[in-house]
Every structure is written in C-alpha cells, then in structure tokens.
C-alpha cells in the first residue's frame, strides 16, 4: 500500500520580463513527475541543484500550488485540499529543511519552537510533549530554554526534527536535511532518522544531491534532471545497474562505480541548461556522451525495464553495454 502517490505533477512558473512585463517566459520547474512511496520506507530523490527536487518537495507538502497533476496521501487525493482539511493533513506530513538555523524562529526558545506545531493544531502542548520529542532526538532538558543562536548546527537540526515529530506525523519530507552539517554530524543525523523510522514507522521522502546520503537511507529512489524523473527504481537497480547516462554520471562523480572502472568517460560536459531556455528534445543531449540524432528531436518516454525499474533514455542499451565493457576491463 503506497502512502504517498504523485501523479504527473507539474509546477510551471510564468516569468514576466521586458518592457512593461510584456514578454512571458514559462519555467518548468517540475514537469510531469510520478512516483509512489510505500508506507514505512524511504524514498530518495537525487539530482543536482536546479533539477526541481526542492520544488517537488514543496508541492508535495502543499507549500506551493502545483500547476497540474494529482497528489494522494493514504489513498485520498489532497491536490487541492483547503482550510481545515489541509490543516489536518499538515499534521500528518511534516518537513525538515536544509538549513537548520534559519528554519527556527530566532525569537523563540527551543521549548516554544518544539511545541509550536501542536499549538497550531490545537493539541496537548504540555511541557512533557516537548521533553519527549527532544529525548527522541537525543537532546537533554537543558536546551529547552535556549535560543536558536545558542545551538550548534547539529543541535539545531535535532530541534527541527523534534519539532517535526511532536505531531507524530506519518510522513516526513526531508529536503537536503544534512547538507548544512559537517561529515560526522551528517552520519549521526542520518542514523537518527533510521532509528526513528524503526521506532515510529515513519515514511520518509528524502531529497538530496548527495548520493551517499541517498544510499545510506533509501529503499527506492528516483533521479531527477531539469524537472523530470530520468530514472527510478530500487536502490540496487540504480546503484548497480544504472541505465541512464545522467545516473551513471552522478555515480561516477561520487566514485560509486565498481572498482577499476574509469568514470571519466561517463562525465557530463558543461553546465545544466537554463530552465528559461531548455534544449529541444532530450534536455540532457547537449551534455550527454551517449547522445545520438534522435535525442535532438524527441524527449524519451519513461520505459519499464522490469521489477519497477524505469528509465527515460533513447540509448539505454548503449549505456548498459558501455558500463558492462568498462567492468570487464
């Protein structure tokens, strides 16, 4: 049973520019994304900055209105939920953001920060609720009276997590939850997420540019590029049988390829294209070492490779072959 289902989600922005805002440019931050997250598992979304993964998160959390597409939580559509219904839903889906310090109100003490969600939802805001949540994330009573600027980055992120937990949500959206922390803190916070999942059966939607974070946490994942999912499947499928040039390049750049395989030949050229003027055809073709003529014309459909592994590439066979050859050498 999938807890979260996203169907053909699109978020387009209209930018007005030029004299008197007469010129309109459409920016497709998220352009037709579909996936499902099973209850109690962790779903990872990988991609470099500007790929639309944060916009996707904000749409799923209903902090942004999607342009089109459908969102289901626990089988119930909530794409256009409003008022009370949305507020109740917010108690079930919580978010933890990238920058722990700036996501805490600087004028509140930790106790009030942690209790704010239960107060907003009109639930029990007893001090024990805050203590309980802080204990879960490994913080002691002594932080209760501190202001955010007195906390370290790791502590601040733990406070942010504690705040997300007080409502006992069924799903947590983690938007780059560790990228502002140093390496040892990252590992601690990720382990904390894993423990909390075992203990409270929380479902995670984890967004990160860091494949090691995704690898540490996720059961299944999707790779996004320029607002679309280019490959999705289980952790094993994407890490050991990548079939999209972009997935391959991400793995190569993070040294996740098998021992002895030279990743340089899979590296991408140049920069991510500007979203206001995306390339015709496959958005990756100007940078792709596997690009052929057809890539300049058509965007490839997401095709099933079996066992829930999907990939959107005209030349997927060449990609797997190239990886195979590289492995043998």
């Amino acid at each position, binding site marked *: 049973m999938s807890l979260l289902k996203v169907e053909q989600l699109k978020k387009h922005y209209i930018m007005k520019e030029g004299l008197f805002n007469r010129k309109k440019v459409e920016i497709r931050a998220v352009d037709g994304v579909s996936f499902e997250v099973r209850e109690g598992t962790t779903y990872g979304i990988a991609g470099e900055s500007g790929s639309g993964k944060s916009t996707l998160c904000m749409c799923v959390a209903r902090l942004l209105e999607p342009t089109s597409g459908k969102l289901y939580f626990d089988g119930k559509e909530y794409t256009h939920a409003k008022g009370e219904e949305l507020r109740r839903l917010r*108690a079930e889906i919580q978010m933890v953001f990238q920058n722990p310090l700036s*996501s805490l109100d*600087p004028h509140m003490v930790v106790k009030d920060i942690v209790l704010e969600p239960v107060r907003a939802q009109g639930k029990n805001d007893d001090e024990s609720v805050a203590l309980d949540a802080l204990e879960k994330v490994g913080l002691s009573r002594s932080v209760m009276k501190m202001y955010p600027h007195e906390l370290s980055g790791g502590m601040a992120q733990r406070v942010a997590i504690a705040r997300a937990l007080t409502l006992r949500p069924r799903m947590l959206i983690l938007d780059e939850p560790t990228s502002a922390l140093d390496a040892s803190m990252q590992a601690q916070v990720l382990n904390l997420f894993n423990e909390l999942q075992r203990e409270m059966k929380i479902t995670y939607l984890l967004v990160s540019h860091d494949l090691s974070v995704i690898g540490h946490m996720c059961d299944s994942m999707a790779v996004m590029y320029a607002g679309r999912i280019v490959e999705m499947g289980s952790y094993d499928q994407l890490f050991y049988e990548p079939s999209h040039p972009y997935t391959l390049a991400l793995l190569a750049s993070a040294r996740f390829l098998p021992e002895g395989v030279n990743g340089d030949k899979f590296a991408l050229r140049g920069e991510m294209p500007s979203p206001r003027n995306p390339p015709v055809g496959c958005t990756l073709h100007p940078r792709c070492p596997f690009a052929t003529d057809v890539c300049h014309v058509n965007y490839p459909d997401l095709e099933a490779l079996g066992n829930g592994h999907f990939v959107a590439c005209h030349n997927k066979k060449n990609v797997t072959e190239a990886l195979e050859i590289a492995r043998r050498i």
Partner: protein
Amino acid sequence: MNDLNVGAYLVKRALLTVVVVIGTITITFFLSHVVPSNPVILLAGQNPTPEQIARLTHEYGLDEPLYVQFLIYLRQVFSGNLGISFSFSLQPVLPLVLQTLPNSMTLGALATLLAIVVGIPLGVESARRTGRKFDSLMRIFSVSSVALPQFWLGLILQLIFAVYLGILPNASYGGSLLFFDMHPVKTVTGSYLIDSLLTGNFVTFVAIAKSMVLPVLTLALYPIGLMIKQTRSSVMAALSQDYIRTARAYGIKEREVNYRFALKNALPPIIVTAALTFAYSSTLGVIYVEEVFNLAPGLGFLLRSSTGTGISSTGISGALDYQLILGLAIVVGIFYAIANLVADALQIYFDRRIAR
C-alpha cells in the same frame, strides 16, 4: 535573561545622549552665529541710535569673541539655565519652550498613533500581496504621501472639510481665536486636549478634539506613508525566511503567520520608525501644521519666531533670537535622543536576544 545587562546597555545609550546634545549645541551655536544678525534690535525699540545698540550689545555680552560666548553659554546650560528670549520680552527660554511642548506633543502623539494603526496593517497586507494591484496602489500612495507638502495638504483639507462641507472647524484650538476666553481650561499638563478631558470639561474636549482632526490628518499623512513603506519591506524580508515556510508547513493559520510570526520578526525597524516619527511630528513636523491651522501656543510658532520670521512680542522681527534657537535645538535634540532610547528599550523588550 540578565536584567543587569539590560540596565547597563540602557545607561550606556543614555550617556551617549549627553554627547549628542553637546554636539547639537555646538553645531547650532556656530551655525546661528554665521548669519549676520544682532538680536538686540529686538529690544532697542523704534529707530535706535548706534550708541544705544552698542550699549545693549555690550550689556548682553554679544561683543565678546565667539568662543567666549560659546563657553559662557555652555556653563549656563550646565547650570540649568537656557537663557532669555529677545523676541519674547526677555522671558526665560526654558519655561517658554516647556509651555508650548505639551500641545505640540499631543499633535505628534496622535499623528504617530494614526500612522501605526493605519500604516502597519496596510504595510503587512501590501507585503503579502507583493506585485499585485493592492501592493502597487500602496506603493503609489506611500510615495505620494511622503512627497506631498504639508502646507498644501493642510489648505486643501481646510477647503474641503471646513469651507465646502463645513463639518469641521477651519483653524485654532476649539475652532475660534476667542474659544478659550469663553471656555477656559485649567492647566494640568499644558495640553489643551488632555487638560479638558482631565478636568471633565466634556463639551470643551469635543470642540478641541474636532479642531484637531484636520491638523492630525495633515501631520499623519507623511508618517503613514513612511510606515507603510517600512512595514512592507521588513515584513517582505521576514516572510521569505525559512522559519516562516516551516510555520506554514505545520499548519499555522495564514493570518497568524503574517501578523504573529512575520510581523514580530519585522518589528525592530518599525519600532525605530515609529519612535522617530513621534519625535519628528512633535517638533519639526508641527511647524507648518501649527502655522496653517493657527494652533498657538506650539513649538512650531516658537521655532518660527526664533529665526526672525514669525511673530514676536515687540512686533519687530528679522533678527535671530540666539538663545531661543539654542534652547529649542536642545529640547528637540533631547526629544530625539529620548525617542531613540525608548525605541532601544522596546527593541530589547521584543527581542530578548539583544539583552543576552
């Protein structure tokens, strides 16, 4: 929370005030003496002979070197004496200023209150609707209200509400120059509006209040525009913060997000604006308004006569009344310094972190 720290901080700021006032005195003293002018002509009567002028100049020490005059003045100020006014028949300056202050402060306080009550909500709503029609309208309004000259606005309001519609009095406290002859008000604080209320003189209170509607409106327009602009920009900055996004994510109502979370964090610059608005409206802001609406006595009138452009008790004008100018500068300087101090204290109250 450490009360000792807060106290030390405020004392430090208060000491700074003394420095500010000495600076104000120095600059005002030398600036006023740059202009060639001899205030004794205000005393010498009609067609004085050069000998009479020379005698009076010597008598009041005005022929001493400038730095000697300055040091004498400083010594006098620190013994609590602000000197005498040449344009008001040698009355002492301090009581003269203190008599006019309550009425001008009442005008300033009402204008500031209006600016806060009207300006802050409009600013918040404008920030919420950035780039939309309401926001554009507010931006046009705030720029034009800051740009409109008060003396022009005052006249237009008089024309509309007093002349054409006839629903509000044209000028003067109580609506007539003879008002206080018929309705005397016992002096308690020195402010007509407050005194009439305190002495339970309700009819008089209403008449005075009515006569103050147009002046306060005129005085408040500029601060309202300022307040809208300031609130808009600082609330906009606060709304883009991560913790505001987080607050939305856990289901805080939109109203609360805007007014409790965003406004609270946007408050410091708004407090400073409000405090300076009060200082400005009570002192410099009233110059035109008191003139246009003939609201005497007031600080604005004193300021005008001290520079030789207003009325004086001798009927002769055209000379600088040095000690009155300096006395007003000191009072205005202290007024601004206190307003800043209050703003500091309020900021500490709203943001406990500063005091940590």
